[in-house]
């Protein structure tokens, strides 16, 4: 009985911690819904993307690429490249959640997001640790999943009513600008960002809509190179 109330407490704690992020998730989700119907996809596809993919950035880009008539293989590769950061999140959560049975790990992995990761890893690393880490994580991640489904459905419903002159598609880079701020932390990440953006811009006309992927690879490579160079300079100095 005490164990159950501990779990409930950890869950409620997670919900409380995620609450301040809610105002940001709703417009983001609505944008993803609007983007899907704006390129002419069926409303069911917009909702299906949120349930099956459940990753905002990639959903927006997938909608855009489908609208541009990109090849299916390119769309898949681009989306997975965008979601590659989940490997990093997943790996860094492993020491805290890796011991759980698969019936826990699979659903917890499915609801992994940038926000749920950020909240949980901060708590697990610096916060007071009371047993039920997976309940805290569930409390942080599950409300985001529910909100995402509701807000994309709302966007899908609204999207058909929005006139093209409003240029709702511009919301995509706007949302991403906000996501960019916290990931630019040091000099190598600035270099990775500048290279990624610059190369993607130069490669805009690249065949098969590969511009984004080329830019992303160049950005990651330059970030790693910058980090290694800075380390070497520190060692010799």
């Amino acid at each position: 009985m005490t164990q159950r109330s501990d779990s409930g407490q950890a869950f409620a704690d997670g919900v409380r911690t995620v609450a301040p992020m809610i105002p940001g998730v709703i417009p983001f989700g609505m944008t993803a819904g609007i983007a899907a119907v704006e390129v002419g996809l069926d409303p069911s596809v917009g909702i299906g993307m949120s349930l099956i993919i459940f990753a905002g950035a990639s959903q927006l880009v997938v909608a855009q690429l489908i609208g541009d008539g990109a090849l299916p293989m390119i769309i898949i590769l681009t989306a997975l490249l965008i979601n590659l950061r989940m490997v990093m999140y997943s790996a860094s959560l492993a020491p805290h959640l890796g011991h759980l049975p698969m019936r826990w790990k699979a659903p917890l992995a499915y609801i992994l997001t940038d926000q749920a990761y950020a909240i949980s890893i901060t708590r697990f690393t610096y916060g007071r640790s009371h047993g039920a880490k997976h309940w805290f994580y569930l409390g942080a991640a599950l409300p985001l999943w529910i909100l995402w489904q509701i807000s994309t459905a709302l966007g899908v419903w609204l999207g058909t009513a929005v006139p093209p002159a409003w240029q709702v598609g511009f919301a995509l880079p706007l949302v991403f600008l906000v996501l960019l701020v916290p990931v630019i932390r040091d000099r190598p990440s600035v270099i990775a960002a500048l290279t990624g953006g610059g190369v993607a811009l130069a490669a805009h006309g690249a065949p098969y809509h590969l511009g984004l992927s080329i830019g992303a690879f160049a950005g990651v490579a330059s970030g790693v190179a910058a980090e290694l160079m800075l380390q070497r300079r520190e060692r010799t100095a």
Partner: protein
Amino acid sequence: MSTTAVWTVIVVIGLGTFLLRLSGIHLLGGGSMPEGLMRALRYVPPAVITAIVVPAIVYGGPDGGFSLHNARLLAGVIAAVVAWTTRSVLATLGLGMGSLWLIEWLLH
């Protein structure tokens, strides 16, 4: 693209994304990832996000490219400043879309 193709693409991406999400938690158990791989993965978010944002601002609109008629260039710079200072999705969306509409209205 046909409806079947669209759904196939979505299911494959969904499955792939799930495996990416499960990878670390499942394969590592309680261990940690090779240092080199973690280092490279740290630069995925900044590189990917700007690779999405910059072309979307420059070439995304009806008057794409570097020209005075491209309202997205100035609106994008304004939005970047708002994002940087407020870190708020709501404020960035509001002021970004607002300035885009205002600039379009002034240009036409």
